[in-house]
């Protein structure tokens, strides 16, 4: 087999981990609160600046800067819910889209104001692993491992805890959940915090591989939304599977043609699949 093709496939697999993690966060929020956070990728951008700022500028140890990103974006997620979503929870979905869409421009402009449009890098160069002529960067390997661990932790949280069970139940009957002693508002806050924490974790993993700038959310935001819809919006398993399919198309398409064309291919496939299975590739 072609070594370079194999390398492309492996890199695609590793890319899928981070995308799957972010897809999980977006799907969780949509599935539970029934709101799409258009600015989700920009929350990731905020987390990347937290890592950059604390580590590269203030000289914090990297793990501490990572922890700050996870906690900081989790708090940001709670604020997004309290300040933007909660007041308009009962209004038309389009209003919620517009409100979180407005947040996207706010965050991008705010980041430009503070950090300018310069590309910044945390300056960590992890070594590259070579196995039988295949080169894999440790930062991607690490990102994949951490993303998978994060997804597994989320799975057990949702399956094994009372709050997790309530999170899975709430969308099925928002009224009766109250009779179980569950305060809906509290579940929404916990969900927003988890969604934020996943964005913050994704930010750490992306900061290892990419430069941060105010508009980095635009580079992978549409990709995450496409993956979510492909897997069935709100369907966490579907999103996970779709993340792997899309990253493989991008990685292998990039190997045969060019990276730009591979994105075109991915979006064409997406449009075609939407005609065939508008409900997403996994599920009913």
């Amino acid at each position: 087999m072609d070594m370079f093709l194999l390398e492309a496939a492996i890199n695609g697999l590793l890319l899928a981990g981070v995308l799957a993690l972010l897809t999980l966060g977006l799907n969780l929020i949509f599935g539970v609160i029934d709101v799409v956070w258009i600015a989700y990728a920009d929350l990731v951008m905020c987390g990347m600046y937290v890592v950059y700022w604390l580590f590269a500028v203030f000289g914090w140890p990297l793990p501490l800067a990572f922890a700050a990103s996870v906690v900081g974006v989790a708090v940001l997620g709670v604020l997004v819910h309290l300040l933007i979503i909660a007041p308009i929870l009962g209004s038309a979905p389009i209003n919620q889209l517009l409100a979180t869409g407005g947040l996207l421009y706010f965050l991008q402009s705010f980041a430009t104001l503070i950090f300018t449009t310069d590309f910044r890098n945390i300056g960590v160069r992890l070594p590259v692993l070579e196995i039988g002529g295949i080169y894999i960067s440790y930062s991607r390997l690490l990102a994949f491992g951490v993303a998978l661990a994060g997804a597994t932790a989320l799975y057990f949280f949702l399956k094994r805890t009372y709050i997790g069970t309530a999170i899975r139940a709430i969308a099925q009957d928002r009224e009766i959940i109250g009779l179980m002693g569950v305060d809906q508002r509290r579940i929404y806050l916990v969900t927003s915090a988890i969604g934020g924490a996943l964005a913050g974790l994704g930010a750490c993993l992306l900061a290892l591989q990419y430069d941060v700038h105010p508009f980095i959310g635009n580079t992978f935001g549409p990709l995450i939304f496409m993956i979510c819809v492909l897997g069935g919006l709100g369907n966490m398993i579907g999103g996970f599977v779709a993340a792997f399919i899309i990253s493989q198309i991008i990685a292998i398409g990039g190997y045969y043609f060019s990276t730009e064309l591979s994105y075109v291919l991915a979006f064409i496939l997406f449009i075609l699949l939407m005609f065939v299975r508008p409900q997403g590739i996994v599920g009913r």
Partner: protein
Amino acid sequence: MLSLFDVSAGYGSFRALFGVSLEVAAGETVGVIGPNGAGKTTLMRVISGLVAASAGAISLDGRSIVGIPAHRTVARGIAHVPENRRLFPKLSVEDNLRIGAFIPAARRHFAEQLAWVYQLFPQLRERRSQPAGTLSGGEQQMCAIGRALMSRPRLLLMDEPSAGLAPLVVQEVFELIRRIRAEGLTVLIVEQNIQQVLGVVDRAYLLEVGAIRLSGTSTELKNNEFIRKAYMGL
């Protein structure tokens, strides 16, 4: 244990209850009977806090529970089995039971409570990992009752437990209610199936267009001329 005095309630400008007063003593099984649209479901919802009372007093063990939202009345010891069961259809039977034990006081006793529910309803144990939506009507009712029991209630509210079930299954459900009674729980049942419910309760109230029209022991009501004529077709 439970006492309602002159309670009125409704939805927006629509009033469903007009000055309802009733009492349930500890250990009793009490029924509220009446036709469709009499306000029976609203009565249950007012007690559990899903609907706010617009006037009147509701107290549990002498403490007012007016204005307490549903998610906090559970901790006071009230469990509500809603009309049409309202299980979480995609969750497994056991997850439905687990969420019934959401309040901290119930979590501590999860294992023993689960064992008790499975002992009451052995079919639920067999189907514990099955999605609740795939259960038969009777099993769903067991699961809904079991879910309510998981919160370790002192007062169990049951809204139309026989609604939408086949006649044979209705028999089964009333058998379940007898079993729960025997466990010493205080139960308030709302039912349209008057003949059946009078067979399992100690006392009952007749609710018509939002007001209590009659009340008495089940024997008194079974022999009441008006009820026999209007509701039993005798």
